[in-house]
Each structure stands twice: as C-alpha cells, then as structure tokens.
C-alpha cells in the first residue's frame, strides 16, 4: 500500500494531470505523499504495538506476490517487509518527501517544468519506498536502479544547462558502475544460496513461513541473513563471503558516495534545491547505508568486510570534512557535509558486531536525525538562494534580520549537526562515537572526534558568513522572507531536529545481542561537545565579523589550500584516467576492432556475394537456346548417373 500510493500518483500526475494544469499537479502530488506519510505512521504504530519496544523485532512480510519464476525454489517475489529499520526508513522517507513536496510548491512556482518536477518526485518516492520495504535482494536491486534513474531525471531537471546534464550523467554512470559490483555480489550470494538451499531451508522455513510471505526463496533477506545459511556458506572459510560482501559494499559505496565514488555528489547540486534536500540529504544516499544494515548479519560474519566498511566510512568522513572547509558554494558545503555524515553512518555500521551491536543502532539513529536536520539545511539554503539569487556564501550576509524564520531554523539545524546538546545530532553522533570506543576501534574514534570538530567549524563558517554582518551584495540587500509553503516545512523540520534526539532508538532498532542503553555516555559526550565548541569558537574568530583573517590564512597556506579547494583534484584524476588511459588504450582499439573487423566481415560477405554475382552474370545471355543446352546437359548427366547406378 505504502509504495503503491506514490506510484499511482506518479502515473496520474505524469500522464493525466500535467498536460492539463500545472498547479493541480503539485497539489495532487503533495497530498499523495502526505497520505503516504500518514500511512507510514500508522504502520509504525501498529508494528510497535504488536512487538513492543525493548523486545524482539522479527521481520514480517504482510504482502508478497510472485513475479518471476525460474524453479520452485528460485522465485523472485515482489513484496513488503516490515521490521524495525524498514518502518524507521518508511517514516523518514515519507515525512521528508512530503515536506519537500510542500516546499517545492513554493520553490518551483513559475518554473515551466513544474508538473514534470512533481512527476519525478513521486517516482522517486515510490522507488525509495520500494527499496526500503524490499523483502528480497532482487527487488531491492530493481528499486535501487529506479532510484538511480529518478535521481538522474531530477539532477538533470534543468536540462538546458550543459553543466546539469553532465552532472546527471556523472551521477548515473558512477552509481551504475558501482552497481556492477553490487550485481556480482548478488549473483555470488544467490549462487551459493541456491546450492545450500536444500540443506538449510528445513531448519528455517517454518519460522519464516509463520511470519508470512509464503515459502522461503533463495533471494529473501530472511534466508540470506540467517545464521544457519551464513554458517553453511562460511563452512569452507570466509573468503567467498568476504568477497561477496565487499562487492555488495561497492554498490552501497557508489550510492552513498563513499571515497572514491563520491565524485558525483557535489556536482549533483546542479539540481533544484528541493531535489538536493530529498535525494542527497535524507533518502537516496542513505540507501547504501540501509543496504549494509539489511545485510548486517552477513557482514558481521565476515569480519574483514566490516573493517573495510568502517575504514572507508571513516576516511570519507575526514576527506569530505576537509574539503568542506574551503568551499564557497553553500550547496557544495552541504554536499560535502552530507558525505561526511554518511561516512559516520558507515563507520558506525562498520564498528559494530553481533556481540556489541551498538553501532548498528547508532547508525540508524544518525540516519534518522541526519535526515531531518540535513533536509532542513538544504531547504533553508534553498530559501536563501531563492532570496539572494546566488549560491555563493560571499554574496550573502546580514540575512538574519531580513529572513528571521530561515535564520532561526538554519541555526537550529547547524547546532544539531555540530552535535550540541540537547539537539538531535548530539545524541546520534555521540552514540556512534561510543560504539567505536566500545569496540576498541581507537583510530576510528579519534578520526570521528576530529571530524566532529571540523563539522562544527565549517557549518558555523557558512552560518556566520551568510547571516551575520552586512549584506555583501545586491541580492543580499534585497532579500526577503520565503513564502509560507517554504518556511512551514522548515519549521516542522526544525521541531523534528530538536525532538528526534530523545527517541530511545535502541528500543526500536537493534540486532544481535541485547545491550543495555547507558543513556548519555559522558566519557564520549564531554570531549565531543568540547571539540564542537572549539570549532564554533574558531569559526566565530575567523568569520564572525567582517574581517579578513580567514583570507589571510588561506593565502598563507598557499598551495595546500588550493589543492583542498579543488577537491584534491580527484575529478581531474578521474578525467585523466578515463580519457588518456581508458579511452586511448582500451576504447580506441576496441572501436577499431569493431569498425574494421566485425563490420569488415559483414561487408566482406556482402561484397563477395556481389562479386560472385557479377562474375557469373555472363551466363545470363537471355537466349533460350543457351538455357536449353544447359537443360539438356543436366538431363543427360542425371540419366548417366541413374544408368550407372542401375548397372
């Protein structure tokens, strides 16, 4: 039901309403998503009534339908899986999507592609919900690709801008390339699962069938993550499982923009700001994190894969935070901030294990809170861009008085992301750091702390530059507050950013061994908050007033600063590798081969037939007597053969 509504709305809006009336499209689309959100809340309520918090949360499959059938045990089903994390994500996705829809009514007003925008937003919501509720890995993959397509359509929304078009192509190609790894991982898992299905299914099938969804299938998550299956797969050593999990993580890394597949996310800011809020802050980029969480038992069985996840996440976090310090475009700063926070989520999953699963809960918790305050940041930035008509923070200034609501909500979000008590970010970030410390990953813990400080610094950098001081440009001096449809979502998200921290997530989302929720772990909270305050202080020092201490520091750092500002030249590196190396040494020979040899064979067969034809054309004299001669000769030949056979 829940994914179906946006899908129907998508079809309705796209095919019927859009040509008729632009405004109606927006209203229908938004109401559809609000209805979906309401349904998600109801579902969450019911589920957590059935399985009260603090207890066990099995996965229920209330609806599933057969889609493809290869054999009795190899069937792909389409269905809905309900458990702790899927309910969580359904709530998050539908809420943020509904608010973004509402915001877009104001933001996209007057744009010629208004109806088209809402069509794509609905498509995206449907795909994301389909991904979240997938009961087996194939449906997840299908929706994964659909989400990629929606993202492509939305990033390239301003299709007349060449930079937008190339950004959307880049996003799609990078994530598609990552999905290759994902697909291979799926195939390995499926292949091994299929072989082991016979011996394992006896033990788990009854329990799985009791929860609904019919007979167990090879690709179901219930099968893939069951300890019996995993034990059977790793009976001959964990190498194969590790390889499969790392490949699956490749897919997650591409979608969640881990280093080195992060290059598409900053450029994806070419899309309209509501798109950035929805897709690249709250929902699509967390698909990768969700995938790892879904397959967490499989990851946990192979410790190496989990370490890879943790270190990649930590590195991305640090890398992105460093670059965010130098960017001037507000959306780019937010994009790198998202990368950094995603790194946190990944590393939280990476440091967890079945015995100490705090990281799992912490990651989901951070996903939950991050969705709210990052969406708020993006939407607020959108309001600012809308008012000032420029993306650069150096064009803004003094907006605090002119846009009070935006100012307050943006400040709340910035405090939240810096991890200041009692806002949401404080709780979730500290849980992640506590998880790292609890499992003795000291390097990761240190990196996490460092990045927390840097986060506070760069977020307050943009806050101070944009909102304090005097207006720095024409646009800023004429800024005005956003219309209701735009500041209402901001306000709602601000409230959520404040209260979301108080949700006792561990009661809702956990896996593996039960753990006691310690409340606030002071050993972690105090140093983290201290670092955050230091970060804020430094930002105030550099940017609080109209001074050029920052500019002086930048020039004194010279080349180092330039390198970081250019995002470590990673994009240029990619271009170099693809153009000079792959295109020249691999693509060109292959193209040559295709043109000259493959086509050549075809052309040769055609040419040779023609040549033979023209060579033999002299036989066609048009004179009957010549043909009669051939006829008689043939007849004689046949008679001779018959006569000799007779003899």
């Amino acid at each position, binding site marked *: 039901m829940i994914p179906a509504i946006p899908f129907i709305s998508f079809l309705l809006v796209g095919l019927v309403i859009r040509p008729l009336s632009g405004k109606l499209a927006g209203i229908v689309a938004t109401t559809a998503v609000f209805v979906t959100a309401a349904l998600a809340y109801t579902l969450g309520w019911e589920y957590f009534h059935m399985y009260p918090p603090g207890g066990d949360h099995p996965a229920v499959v209330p609806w599933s339908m057969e889609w493809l059938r290869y054999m009795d045990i190899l069937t792909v089903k389409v269905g809905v899986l309900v458990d702790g994390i899927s309910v969580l994500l359904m709530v998050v996705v539908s809420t943020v999507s509904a608010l973004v829809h509402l915001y877009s009514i104001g933001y996209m007003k007057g744009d010629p592609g208004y109806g088209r925008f809402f069509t794509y937003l609905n498509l995206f919501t449907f795909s994301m919900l389909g991904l979240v509720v997938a009961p087996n890995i194939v449906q997840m993959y299908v929706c994964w690709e659909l989400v990629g397509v929606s993202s492509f359509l939305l990033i390239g929304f301003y299709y007349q801008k060449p930079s937008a078009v190339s950004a959307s192509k880049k996003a799609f190609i990078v994530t598609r390339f990552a999905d290759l790894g994902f697909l291979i991982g799926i195939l390995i898992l499926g292949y091994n699962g299929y072989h082991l299905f016979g011996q394992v299914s006896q033990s788990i099938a009854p329990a799985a069938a009791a929860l609904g969804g019919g007979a167990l299938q090879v690709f179901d998550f219930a099968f893939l993550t069951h300890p019996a299956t995993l034990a059977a797969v790793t009976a001959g050593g964990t190498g194969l499982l590790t390889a499969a999990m790392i490949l699956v993580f490749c897919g997650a890394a591409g979608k969640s923009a881990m280093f080195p597949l992060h290059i598409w996310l900053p450029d994806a800011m070419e899309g309209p700001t509501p798109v950035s809020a929805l897709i690249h802050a709250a929902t699509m980029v967390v698909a990768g994190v969700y995938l790892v969480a879904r397959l967490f038992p499989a990851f946990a069985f192979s410790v190496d894969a989990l370490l890879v996840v943790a270190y990649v996440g930590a590195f991305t976090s640090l890398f992105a935070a460093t670059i965010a310090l130098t960017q001037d475009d507000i959306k780019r700063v937010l994009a790198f901030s998202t990368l950094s926070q995603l790194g946190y989520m990944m590393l939280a999953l990476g440091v967890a294990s079945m015995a100490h699963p705090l990281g799992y809960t912490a990651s989901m918790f951070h996903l939950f809170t991050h969705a709210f305050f990052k969406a708020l940041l993006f939407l607020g930035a959108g309001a600012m861009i809308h008012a000032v008509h420029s993306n650069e923070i150096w064009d803004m200034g003094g907006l605090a008085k002119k846009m009070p609501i935006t100012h307050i909500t943006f400040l709340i979000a910035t405090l939240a992301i810096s991890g200041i008590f009692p806002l949401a970010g404080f709780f979730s970030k500290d849980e992640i750091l506590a998880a790292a410390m609890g499992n003795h990953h000291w390097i990761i813990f240190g990196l996490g702390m460092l990045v927390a400080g840097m986060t506070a610094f760069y977020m307050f950098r943009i806050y101070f530059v944009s909102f304090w001081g005097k207006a720095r440009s024409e646009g800023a001096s004429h800024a005005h507050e956003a219309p209701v449809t735009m500041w209402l979502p901001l306000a709602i998200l601000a409230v959520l950013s404040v209260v979301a921290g108080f949700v006792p997530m561990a009661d809702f989302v956990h896996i593996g061994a039960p753990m006691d929720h310690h409340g606030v772990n002071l050993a972690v909270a105090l140093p983290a908050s201290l670092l955050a305050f230091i970060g804020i202080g430094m930002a105030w020092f550099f940017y609080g007033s109209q001074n050029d201490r920052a500019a002086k520091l930048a020039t004194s750092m010279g080349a180092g600063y330039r390198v970081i500002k250019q995002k470590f030249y990673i994009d240029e590196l990619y271009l170099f590798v693809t153009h000079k190396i792959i295109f020249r040494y691999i693509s060109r020979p292959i193209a040559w081969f295709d043109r000259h040899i493959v086509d050549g064979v075809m052309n040769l067969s055609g040419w040779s037939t023609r040549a033979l034809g023209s060579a033999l054309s002299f036989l066609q004299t048009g*004179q009957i007597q010549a043909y009669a001669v051939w006829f*008689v000769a043939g007849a004689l030949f046949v008679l001779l053969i018959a006569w000799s056979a007779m003899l």
Partner: protein
Amino acid sequence: MMEFLATHTPGVMHWLVLSAVLFSIGLYGLLTRRNAVGILLSVELMLNSAAFNFVVFNKFVVPATVDGELMAIFVIAVAAAEVVVGMAIFVALFRYRNTIDVNRMNLMKN
C-alpha cells in the same frame, strides 16, 4: 544381296536406334538453329520420333492391338495445334522486333 535383305529384317533394336537418331537430330536442330521457324521444325521432328517409337513398340510388343498407332495419331494432332500456337507467337514477335532470329531475343540478358 536380295537373300541378305530377305533373311535379315530389322529387329526392334534397329527401329529404336532409328527413333533415337531422329530425336537427336531434332534436338541438335533445336539447340542450334537461328531461325525460330527452324526451331519449330526441329521440335516437330522430335515429336515425330516419339510417335515413331510408340508405333515400333506397338508392332513388336503388342501386335494384336492398335494402341501405339492410336497414340501416334494423337501426337500428330497435338503437334499440329502446337505449331499453330508457335507460328502465332512468331508472327506477333516479328511485328515488334522485325526479326525472328533467336540470337537477337536477349532482352532478359543479365
């Protein structure tokens, strides 16, 4: 000489060889004559040789009946009809091409 001729009357093989020779002459003419009417004449020769064959078999295999001779009369009738059709075609052809030289009838060339 008269005694030789009296005692050595032609047997069935001799007559069949004669029929074959006539057929071959007709065939050769069919393949080599330039004049369309000449080709028709050759075809007539071939038909007549076939009829002749029928008569020979009639005489030597079933002399009691006249089936073979009857067949020969049929052949002659059919040949006559065919000549009529052929001449009609040649006359029409001559009207358009002003010649009935078959070597010049090569519109289907290549």
